[in-house]
């Protein structure tokens, strides 16, 4: 049952891997080159050891030194070749991996771009982090999985043929033991990893959850005198995890031991065949050492295979998850024959209904909205009533189930997204600040804005003084997702960015959640003043802020 499950997983993974991992033309050559170099390096190592074995055995027969010269030169040449080939292989495989990484990123980014935020939204921070690390994982597939596997295949074949030429029986022994090791060891290692992953995953997740809860809630636990109890619980979970870990460690150690035993068995097999052949005269004595050493060196090609198998497992899991993203069709697409909005009309919603799935309650039920230039409309409602969904409809991050959104009287689905968003800008609750300077973050809205424009926009959100006081001014870095700024500063920079854009309609979704009531009111008043000739839709939970608007719209109770 489990085995079938695993096999099904693996084959599904393999399918998505082959779908995702298709090489671009240049990469095919590089892959071939890497495999050849890698196999060549291993072959050189085999040559070095086998020739040395021959050299010494031959020398023991006390021939003229000159008779040994060829072998001595060959040994040195193999040694040098091995080092050089290995160097080349490392460079070419890393180059391949980096190219692959860049290509995969651009490709998956393109797929994802159509889905955010409408289709992959809730709890998506982890999902996105997962996505990024999956792409990273997948880019390793050549370096860690395919190149070692293909190279091992080539080396095993070549070594077996070489051994067969020397002594057919030895060729069979070499092939049998190397092939067995190449099949059994990776399978065993992947199975052990899968088993421990399966068994430990739930306990780990529980421990992780308990740890996060304990660290985040430390103050409450301490204040309520529950810290000791919590420590005991963490210890118990930890002990459970350790117990599982111990048995998995034993399984892993057994697999490793078995690998060693297989080498030993192979070596003994080659020796037995070889000794018998020397005795019967089928094999010259000087080649016995060469055969044994050939086997030992060839075995090195099998060593990286278990890690390659684990890597394949990781890659196939990653590609399966990525495939899901790729298979999700973007719900919002541009029309084939787009119309052009006149640029002089209103932004409207007519009888818009929307729900998150069939059978679920309507989030928006018959919503009507009219927004003309110069209008200030507020949307005030308890949270969860679909205010943010309304905002997403108006910029077409999603489409309504019924009714329509129109710009200048044209259905939003009949114009390009580019055209629509040129006219309608959403400054969302979760507006993102990129890990660059304040200037770059502002320029996102208008590439050609000059210093004066930027400072003017910052003045409206009362950040001009703060920026002037920064040692690097506009060129101050904001950190990852603006982490070097306070929540209020982040919000205000996002607002300033919205002011810089030349959209006719601006939708502000909870733009001041982190500001003091007073500052929020001043900033919103400034923003409304600054946007006299634009239509503003202000979404907020604070009725005070809505005071400056001409109309108030309630999402939960549809009104005109």
């Amino acid at each position, binding site marked *: 049952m489990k085995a079938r499950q695993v096999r099904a997983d693996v084959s599904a993974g393999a399918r998505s891997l082959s779908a995702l991992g298709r090489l671009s033309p240049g990469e095919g050559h590089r892959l071939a080159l890497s495999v050849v170099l890698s196999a060549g390096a291993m072959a050189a190592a085999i040559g*070095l050891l086998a020739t*040395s074995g021959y*050299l*010494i055995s031959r020398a023991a027969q006390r021939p003229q030194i000159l008779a040994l010269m060829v072998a001595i030169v060959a040994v040195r040449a193999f040694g040098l070749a091995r080092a050089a080939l290995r160097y080349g292989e490392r460079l070419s495989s890393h180059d391949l991996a980096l190219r692959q990484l*860049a290509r995969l990123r651009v490709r998956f980014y393109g797929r994802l771009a159509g889905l955010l935020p409408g289709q992959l939204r809730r709890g998506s921070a982890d999902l996105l982090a997962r996505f990024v690390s999956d792409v990273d994982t997948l880019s390793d597939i050549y370096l860690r999985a395919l190149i070692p596997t293909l190279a091992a295949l080539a080396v095993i074949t070549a070594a077996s043929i070489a051994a067969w030429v020397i002594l057919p029986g030895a060729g069979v022994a070499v092939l049998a033991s190397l092939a067995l090791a190449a099949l059994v060891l990776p399978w065993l290692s992947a199975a052990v990893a899968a088993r421990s992953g399966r068994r430990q995953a739930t306990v780990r997740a529980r421990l992780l959850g308990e740890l996060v809860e304990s660290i985040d809630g430390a103050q409450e636990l301490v204040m309520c005198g529950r810290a000791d109890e919590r*420590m005991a619980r963490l210890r118990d979970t930890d002990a459970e995890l350790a117990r599982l870990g111990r048995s998995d460690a034993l399984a892993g150690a057994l697999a490793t031991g078995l690998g060693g035993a297989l080498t030993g068995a192979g070596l003994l097999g080659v020796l037995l065949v070889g000794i018998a052949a*020397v005795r019967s005269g089928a094999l010259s004595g000087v080649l016995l050492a060469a055969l044994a050493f050939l086997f030992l060196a060839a075995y090195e090609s099998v060593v990286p295979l278990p890690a390659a198998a684990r890597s394949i497992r990781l890659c196939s899991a990653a590609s399966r998850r990525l495939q899901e993203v790729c298979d999700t069709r973007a719900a919002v697409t541009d029309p084939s024959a787009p119309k052009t909005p006149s640029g002089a009309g209103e932004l409207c919603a007519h009888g818009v209904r929307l729900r998150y799935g069939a059978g679920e309650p309507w989030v928006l039920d018959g919503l009507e909205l009219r927004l003309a230039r110069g209008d200030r409309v507020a949307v005030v409602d308890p949270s969860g009533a679909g205010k943010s969904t309304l905002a997403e409809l108006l910029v077409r991050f999603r489409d309504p189930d019924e009714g329509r959104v129109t710009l200048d009287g044209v259905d939003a689905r009949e114009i390009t997204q580019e055209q629509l968003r040129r006219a309608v800008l959403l*400054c969302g609750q979760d507006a993102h600040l990129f890990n660059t300077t304040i200037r770059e973050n502002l320029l996102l809205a208008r590439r050609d804005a000059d210093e004066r424009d930027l400072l003017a926009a910052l003045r409206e959100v009362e950040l001009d003084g703060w920026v002037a006081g920064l040692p690097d001014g506009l060129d101050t870095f904001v950190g990852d997702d603006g982490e070097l700024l306070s929540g209020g500063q982040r919000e205000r920079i996002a607002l300033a960015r919205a002011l810089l854009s030349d959209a006719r309609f601006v939708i502000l979704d909870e733009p001041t959640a982190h500001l003091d009531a007073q500052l929020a009111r001043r900033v919103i008043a400034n923003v409304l003043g600054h946007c006299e000739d634009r239509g503003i839709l202000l979404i907020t939970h604070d009725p005070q802020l809505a005071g400056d608007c001409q109309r108030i719209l309630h999402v939960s109770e549809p009104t005109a």
Partner: protein
Amino acid sequence: MAAPVHRRLLRESRAARRHLALAGLLGVLGAGLIVGQAALLAYIIDRAALHRASLADLQAQLLALGAVLLARAAVDGGFELSGRLGASRVMSELRARLSRHLLLDSPAGHDGEERTGELAACAVQGVDALQAYFAGYLPQLVLAAFVPLAVLAWATSVDPLSAGILALTIPILILFMILIGKGARVQTRRRWRALSLLSAHFLDVVRGLPTLRAHRREAAQARILADVGERYRAETMATLRVAFLSALVLELCAMIGTALVAATIGVQLAGGYLSLTAGLTVLLLAPELYAPLRGVGQQFHASADGTAAAERIFAVLDRPLGIADAAAQEPAPAGARLAQRRVALARRLPDPAREPIRLDGVGFAYPHRKEPALDGVDLRLAPGQTTALVGTSGAGKSTVAKLLMRLADPTAGRVSCGGVDLRELDAELWRGQIAWVPQHARLFAGSVAENIRLGAPDASDERLQRAAAAAGALEFIEGLPHGMDTPLGEDARRLSAGQRQRIALARAFLRDARLLVLDEPTANLDEESARRIAGALTALTRGRTTLLIVHHALLAERADRVLRLEGGRLARPADGDELVDRRLLEEVA
């Protein structure tokens, strides 16, 4: 050694000492087995190749070789086992110390400084990464210490000339490893940094996709992504070309060493100065001499993640403790003595409902911030009264609350109750008298009832109901699918901010404490919820000493006194008994 041992990790992994000792023992054993295998193999080949010995003649040697090979397999398995067990022990110990540090010793020290999830993931997943260190790198290091010695010793006894050559190459090899290693480590670190930067950039872009789309920059960003990827590739390849040179040189050293030894042995054999057995043994041992040395370099990088995870935890453990516990201060008083001391401390415990709490010249600075959060604050909380503390965010209000609850100790001045410095009290006993309603009440995995009982685990069902009713929470709790038994927390967040806050209030009601600390209990709530909670709060504060941190006019109106904090100082001078007039309040609200 080119790649040094992580001293701190070893020193701190007391739990893994036995495993490390075992690894050492296995290392010695493994070195002996390597030499034994080479010698046996060489002897067998010698007898069979030169003397045409039959299988029967060599039976004993073949059996011995089989035994040695099996033993080597067992040693390899043993290495892995001891390494994995050691890694898991060390990680368990680190996790225990981490949770002790964050929970008991410094509960307020963590405040939003870093991402909890990331730190916890580090503590849980780090064990995998640490395995590479304990099961990969350390055994390799042990082998690198013993194997060359054993090999050289044996080689000297059979062929001093080759042994001399090998002995000469080792210092050269190590010298190169150190010389190149230094440069390579910088290069490698730079490379990893570049790669992780690239990854972070990608994540940044992906997270910002909605914003990019809103500003119609998604297509432009795709081009930037491609450009950045190509630039990093070119730069990284330039560094790699240099970084891989170190491996190239090491490889060349080892290969040339082996080739030289092979030639030397060949010449000696041809001259009849050496037996084939001796020659083959030395030849077989030559690669074994270099393998562990090279392995150390390879494993070092693999283990870097594990040591990074451990370092991340060490960094948290190294942070100074938030409070000094009076009961635990003396060097570890054991069971009975600790209990005695607790009793003695309990006798001195002042009652905050009857005796005033004073802050005298209190200052507090967070270790990682320059500006002090509090600076020379004098304040008095009259027993049984509600004191409201107003001020803009960042003025230090919550810090005052932390000091009152002894989640942190002041860095200057003192906080006292009834004249007793809080630092002289047992923190746990003192906190036992306090109920706290924070700005963002936290719900724990468990039922609604368990969450309300957090501060009073033994409270009866009847008291539970009354507390919930008093907090205005009973109505919505009864509307939940399983009432009081409805699961909450991580996987069941179905409560609104207002409902969570009311559960926190119910907690405070049930706790029935002498001192109440309410930290913006209605921030983040809509008007209606705030009004409802304000009513419950009035009931709760009656007869209790209360510190109310607030910027909501509705609540501050009910306070007996209103004080204002500004930039870590009280806005009005000194004795703190002053009433702030109502106009100020309006301005604040």
